[in-house]
């Protein structure tokens, strides 16, 4: 099976041929299979956003190769717009990109650019708004600027979902959301994955999000892949992550602290549920 995303030796620099040239990626290689959810972590400036922007066809590889669903992005013949339609990207603070007066029109922007028919556009907008939890009938005619921050973010995400992408790239999706908003977003992403088999790459500083969503993680540092592996394995070793300025999920930290204090808990829990089960097993073992 051809991986959905394949990156080989990718390198990139901003401001090439100016005195301010900065290398952002060096010899990065990775791959993501269809229907996988992969996490991307790294300190600020490690190149995560740059990498994601390559994968949705916004940046052309300067060095190295990038394949998206089998298409080589270095090929000048390829239709970049089709890549952008197949791979949706949700940027940081996506609510900043809203520009249409009415919610429905903003969500319809993507489908309209795809040249769809009016009835198809309406359907796409309807399913996208319903998917993010903003019922179509109630929200399509609302003035965009009268929505709350959380609602605006949902509209922005709906705008990306309305293009019916096969894959979704997300850059800090839960940044700035309150716990309820974060929970809704995580559940939405899990639904998209379960119901539509969407391939996803999530770049985040929030280790708890990644622990819940992803099966594999790549760790970026200074534009290079520093670590890679299954989520459980990556988070099992806090020390290498801490040296890179990163952390492990809160739950993992708690278990690690308890173990360090001498309590013989099993390690490796990533979520609250798993931690609860580990504690219960210990409890039942001692009773």
């Amino acid at each position: 099976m051809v991986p959905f995303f394949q990156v080989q030796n990718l390198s990139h620099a901003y401001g090439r041929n100016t005195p301010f040239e900065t290398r952002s990626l060096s010899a990065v290689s990775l791959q993501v299979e269809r229907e996988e959810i992969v996490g991307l972590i790294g300190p600020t400036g490690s190149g995560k956003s740059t990498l994601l922007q390559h994968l949705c066809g916004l940046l052309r590889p300067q060095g190295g190769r990038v394949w998206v669903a089998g298409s080589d992005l270095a090929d000048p013949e390829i239709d970049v717009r089709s890549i952008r339609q197949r791979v949706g990207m949700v940027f940081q603070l996506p609510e900043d990109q809203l520009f249409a007066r009415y919610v429905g029109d903003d969500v319809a922007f993507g489908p309209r650019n795809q040249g769809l028919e009016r009835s198809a556009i309406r359907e796409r907008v309807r399913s996208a708004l319903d998917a993010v939890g903003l019922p179509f009938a109630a929200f399509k005619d609302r003035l965009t600027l009268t929505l709350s921050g959380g609602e605006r973010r949902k509209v922005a995400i709906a705008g990306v979902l309305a293009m019916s992408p096969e894959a979704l790239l997300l850059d800090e999706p839960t940044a700035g959301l309150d716990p309820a908003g974060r929970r809704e977003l995580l559940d939405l992403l899990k639904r998209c994955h379960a119901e539509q088999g969407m391939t996803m790459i999530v770049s985040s500083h929030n280790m708890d999000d990644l622990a819940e969503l992803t099966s594999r993680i790549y760790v970026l540092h200074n534009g290079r892949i520093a670590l890679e592996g299954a989520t459980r394995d990556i988070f099992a070793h806090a020390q290498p992550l801490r040296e890179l300025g990163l952390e492990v999920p809160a739950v993992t930290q708690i278990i690690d602290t308890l173990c360090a204090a001498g309590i013989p808990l099993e390690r490796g829990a990533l979520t609250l549920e798993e931690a609860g089960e580990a504690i219960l097993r210990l409890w039942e073992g001692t009773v």
Partner: protein
Amino acid sequence: MEDFEVMRNLTFGQYLPVESPIHRLDPRSKLLSTGFLLVALIVSRELAALLLAFFILLGLAALARVPVGYLLKPLHAAWPFILLIVLLQLATFPGLPEAGCDTLWQWWILHITTCSVRIAALTLGRIIVLLLLINLLALSTSLNEVIHGTEHLLRPLGRIGLPANELALVLAIALRFVPLLGRETERIMKAQAARGADFGRGRWGFVQRVKRLLPLLIPLFITSLERAEDLAVAMESRCYGGSKGRSHWVQLQANSADYCALFLAVIVSAILVISPW
């Protein structure tokens, strides 16, 4: 593929951080001197005076340890435009024979007269000296210095009722905000492009092309206005209440070098203004 590197072009103001007597001057004296010279240059009508100013500025540039290539770089870009203006002036501003202008050459509607030669030469001189002057200021004064210098200079105006401190604050806010706008715009451009926007490249009618810029321009203006409102609240919650009674963090100290520079500027300005007589 489009080029989204907005930040690439965002290095306006070409400050060159070098140690030199000119760099060390108080920004107020530099700004004032530039101001005097600017005004004088606008009204100057004597080629010899312009030549004098030109050489003095070159001397100051040497004093400022600015490589000549750097100083003249804009000239390298501007010379076709300058040539165009000057040639057009030569040929289309003949001046009237009654005013003592002898025609030197004529073809169809184009005349070259002694007057047009004079205008063209003066304009050429003025443009080049202005270019030197402004670039010298930009190369030797950092943006921070410009802000503080302007704020200090405008202070006396505050006493006669003009919103001087507010103006300086506006300038400071504006300059701090520009790099933010760069990053923001890049992000918005990419986000809209990811949704299939094409910002009016190519074959559209003019009105369509403007409309296709709206997904970029509207978010830019709206998020900026929202930030401005937040900024105002932040300022007020830190007890900003207008300029009355505000103290200043940066105190500028003028010394003899500054007064010398100012004196020199006034002299040269006077020469530029008075010399036609």
